[in-house]
């Protein structure tokens, strides 16, 4: 019986803890909008009412809010947030310095948050005095000019990446033929063709037998502001019958994980997102996702090159492929990885030893790239 009484007391205490609600209010000015966040330690039901200069949020239980009035002096748009209670309900009223529009509002879980993105209403501009109004209009005109997408830059710089090198031999054939040598030879040939026929600048991630890390290759292309990235490799398989050229671009499935991590970060407390360490993490994730912006163009580039290689090697078009290549993930431009042929296949290894075959391969890659450049510059 005593145990039961203790249980009843505990039940009441736990219940009290479970169903009590405290809400933290915060706001942050972004470039184009102001974000207001109501973060509860438990989820809560709410109703929202819009007024001329305020938003009133009705919460269906009594909430504990640290300050009855939260002043937000640094905010461009929010004046103060006032908390009141009535009939077992809490009311949070956000007062704005001027008329406003709600750009979007949404709810996030873990922790439970109600988020509002608010922008200054254009109507409020009309209330300004004429000289102020003129100045604001001038500013908005200037910002409109700034916001317009820049004129598309034509492709002028191409990065060719000969795979492996130095102590990293790459795939090795039965005759000890090494991938690192073939990729360098083909890259030099492609570079020569592009420079002489298209008159474009070509940079290579290595021009001799040295080891370059995968991340450095991507960084080199990004730093030199290349607009197309082509990595050249020789394939190898556990199946000795495997043959034919393959062209890859980064798979979105692989970057899903990064997207998940990014979503997790975005879903974490907003305040924390501005801490330096967190920011570094975020930068790393975004850097890993650099290629996701160019998937469409990369797919087009891959199909142009693969078509040319299929014609050259009389292979059926198995279509371009996708895989999470480390070297492609961090490249911020259309990027592909070409597997010329299988060094693990007896016949293709023989072809790879033949310099005239490598000439033809280089020519096919050059034709694919030039077709892509024509397509890109004319869309």
């Amino acid at each position, binding site marked *: 019986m005593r145990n039961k009484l203790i249980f009843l007391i505990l039940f009441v205490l736990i219940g009290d803890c479970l169903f009590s609600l405290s809400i933290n209010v915060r706001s942050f000015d972004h470039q184009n909008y102001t974000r207001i966040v109501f973060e509860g330690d438990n989820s809560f039901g709410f109703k929202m009412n819009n007024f001329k200069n305020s938003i009133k949020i009705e919460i269906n239980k009594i909430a504990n809010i640290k300050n009855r009035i939260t002043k937000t002096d640094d905010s461009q748009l929010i004046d103060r947030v006032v908390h009141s209670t009535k009939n077992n309900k809490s009311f949070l009223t956000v007062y704005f310095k001027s008329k406003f529009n709600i750009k979007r509002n949404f709810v996030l879980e873990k922790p439970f948050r109600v988020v509002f993105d608010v922008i200054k209403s254009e109507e409020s501009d009309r209330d300004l005095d004429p000289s102020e109004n003129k100045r604001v209009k001038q500013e908005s005109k200037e910002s409109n000019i700034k916001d317009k997408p820049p004129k598309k830059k034509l492709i002028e710089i191409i990065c060719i990446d000969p795979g492996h090198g130095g102590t990293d031999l790459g795939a090795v054939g039965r005759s000890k033929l090494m991938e690192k040598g073939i990729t360098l030879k083909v890259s030099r040939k492609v570079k020569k063709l592009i420079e002489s026929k298209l008159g474009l600048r070509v940079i290579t991630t290595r021009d001799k037998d040295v080891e370059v890390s995968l991340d450095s290759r991507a960084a080199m292309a990004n730093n030199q502001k290349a607009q197309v990235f082509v990595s050249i490799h020789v394939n190898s*398989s556990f199946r000795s019958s495997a043959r034919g050229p393959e062209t890859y671009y980064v798979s979105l499935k692989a970057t899903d994980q990064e997207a998940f991590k990014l979503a997790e970060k975005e879903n974490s407390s907003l305040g924390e997102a501005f801490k330096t360490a967190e920011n570094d993490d975020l930068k790393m994730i975004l850097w890993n996702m650099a290629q996701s912006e160019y998937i469409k163009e990369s797919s087009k580039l891959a199909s142009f090159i693969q078509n040319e290689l299929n014609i050259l090697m009389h292979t059926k078009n198995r279509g371009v492929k996708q895989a999470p290549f480390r070297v492609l993930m961090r490249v911020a431009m259309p990027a592909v990885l070409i597997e010329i042929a299988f060094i693990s296949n007896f016949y293709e290894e023989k072809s790879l030893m033949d310099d005239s075959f490598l000439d033809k391969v280089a020519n096919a890659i050059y034709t694919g790239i030039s077709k892509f450049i024509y397509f890109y510059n004319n869309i």
Partner: protein
Amino acid sequence: MNKNKIYFLIAIAFVFFIIVLIIFFKSSCYSGKKELELSKEEVQEKVEQIKPVKVKMFFFQKNSRYMRPFSYEIGIFKARQDVYKAFINELLKSREDCINPIPEGLKLRSVFYVKKRKILIVDFNEVLLNKFPVGTSSELEFIYYFVDNICYNFKEIKEVKFLVSGNEYKTISGHINIENPFYPDYRYLRDE
């Protein structure tokens, strides 16, 4: 109100109190019985688990780029973790007429299932880095041999992540990023 009426009301209230108490105690006795029954069910569930686990394993063939299925029973286990271990060890065994896309001497160190993220973490020994035959296709064959087989047979696993000697590595042999876990790619499988 006379005295008799007051006594009568007190008696009714007392009887009502006794009835409430009886109901309260009865329900607690019943819940105790239920707990006992539940634990019996739990025992039965464990007994059910001690049965050979039937799986469908896919292997690469010499003249095909697809994996073909074979049915196996992989033994008797008490814990889920042991089933995963046994399954992966079965994949590591070499088979006649099949191609094992794994370097010689590769061994499984441990497996760990992260229930929250539905990820199976598979930790191999250093052989994966030191003796792997370099090549994009080799890496993809190795990765999807494990990922497809694991995810096909264990629906609770959505992704597989690879570690080598307990550490994360960027790639196996310079191509595919293995820092992130992999979803299955069933284009490698040919069900018959």
